[in-house]
């Protein structure tokens, strides 16, 4: 049985390889029944400069378990930390938060968007592990991470999600007038305003989660 499973995964790996090798940006959805979500979570007023944790989080509901990947700036015992966000830090952003100092936008995405986002998160995790961050100030690295994750969303003509253009241009009201540490929070707020209609509310998310878990129970 084990040998047959191994053989089957080897064949599926060989079949999948050309797709990843030639699919330039990873645009192909795998057509799996799983559901994927991107959460942009942020808070202000936690650190001395009035900034706070801000990170993107990718969620995969695959029936038996919920896989969560979060990388960015988080607060661990009041200290600013950049890297993989620990569970106790991202758990509170799994639900909508009513306070004005918090922001949480939950968007349903495709498997291709999820894979592209995950690739960005994995690269930043590697940068942290290898001490290969691009800026001496982690706030700048966090802006780059947030920018790369959100910009990876619409790469294959998926125009549904409206992006705020964080480009230090004339129309960008956030970047030039704000401390780098506060930019991701304000960016998430603006993204939430632009995509309010796409935001997946708590009750809907719980519905999806229980629906995804149902076949596994049978």
């Amino acid at each position: 049985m084990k040998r047959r499973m191994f053989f089957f995964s080897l064949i599926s790996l060989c079949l999948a390889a050309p797709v990843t090798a030639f699919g330039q940006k990873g645009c192909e959805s795998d057509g799996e029944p799983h559901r994927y979500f991107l959460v942009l979570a942020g808070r202000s007023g936690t650190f001395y400069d009035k900034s706070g944790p801000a990170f993107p989080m990718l969620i995969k509901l695959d029936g038996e378990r919920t896989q969560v990947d979060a990388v960015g700036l988080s607060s661990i015992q009041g200290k600013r930390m950049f890297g993989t966000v620990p569970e106790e830090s991202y758990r509170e952003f799994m639900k909508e938060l009513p306070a004005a100092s918090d922001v949480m936008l939950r968007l349903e995405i495709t498997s291709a968007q999820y894979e592209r986002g995950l690739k960005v998160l994995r690269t930043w995790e590697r940068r942290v592990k290898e001490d290969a961050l691009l800026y001496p100030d982690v706030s700048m690295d966090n802006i780059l991470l947030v920018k790369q994750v959100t910009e990876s969303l619409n790469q294959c003509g998926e125009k549904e999600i409206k992006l705020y253009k964080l480009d230090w241009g004339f129309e960008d009201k956030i970047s030039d007038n704000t401390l780098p540490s506060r930019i991701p929070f304000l960016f998430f707020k603006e993204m939430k305003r632009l995509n309010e209609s796409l935001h997946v509310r708590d009750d809907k998310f719980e519905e999806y989660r229980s629906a995804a878990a149902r076949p596994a129970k049978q």
Partner: protein
Amino acid sequence: MYRRNLFANFMSDNSAAPKSPFTPHPASPGAKRFTNALLRTHENKEVKFYDDLIKGRQVIINYMYATCEGACPLVTSKLIKVHKALKDRMGKDLFMYSITVKPEQDDPAALKAFAEMHGAANLPGWLFLTGDPYDIETIRFRLFRWNHIKFDLDLSMHTSMLRIINDATNRWVMVTPEAEMYTILKHISFADPPKSFEEKLEEHKAIQKKIDEEVKQYGYRKII
């Protein structure tokens, strides 16, 4: 153990064994900043960025890409002039590295074709480099960072700058390749190893001789 190491270091410093010609400055940031990423040259040779290319050397680094039709060909032709002007030093105590900003497109063969097109493929001390996009990005930010995300993400900003580093003296200089040759050579000299008093004296004597000749010939100093 510590004492033994200390003793071994002391002995090795005073030994008569010949030292490597390339010794880094004690304050050099070393591989921690430069990284020891594995890169490939236009000759398809694998090199470690810090250990093989930077350590203890004086280098001129620029970014380019093979299909660039804007600044890169102009910068490369300017670098050929720089190479000609400093040909006695090139490959001995001065090196030139052109790193691609588009490693996904530029493999060693593409870089070789670009180098051959500009007549730079076989010039001593000049390498065209490619590698993993992750490493190339890290090196680009570590050497050419402006600390402004808009500029740092704009690849064209990096193709129009030359970074001159002397790891033996820990001097870093930056100059635009659009500057006049005199300015570029002057900037390269800012990173040169310090000269001895005798060398400086000889240099100043030669300059004074030139001034005296001019004053004698024209009645005033012509060249500044």
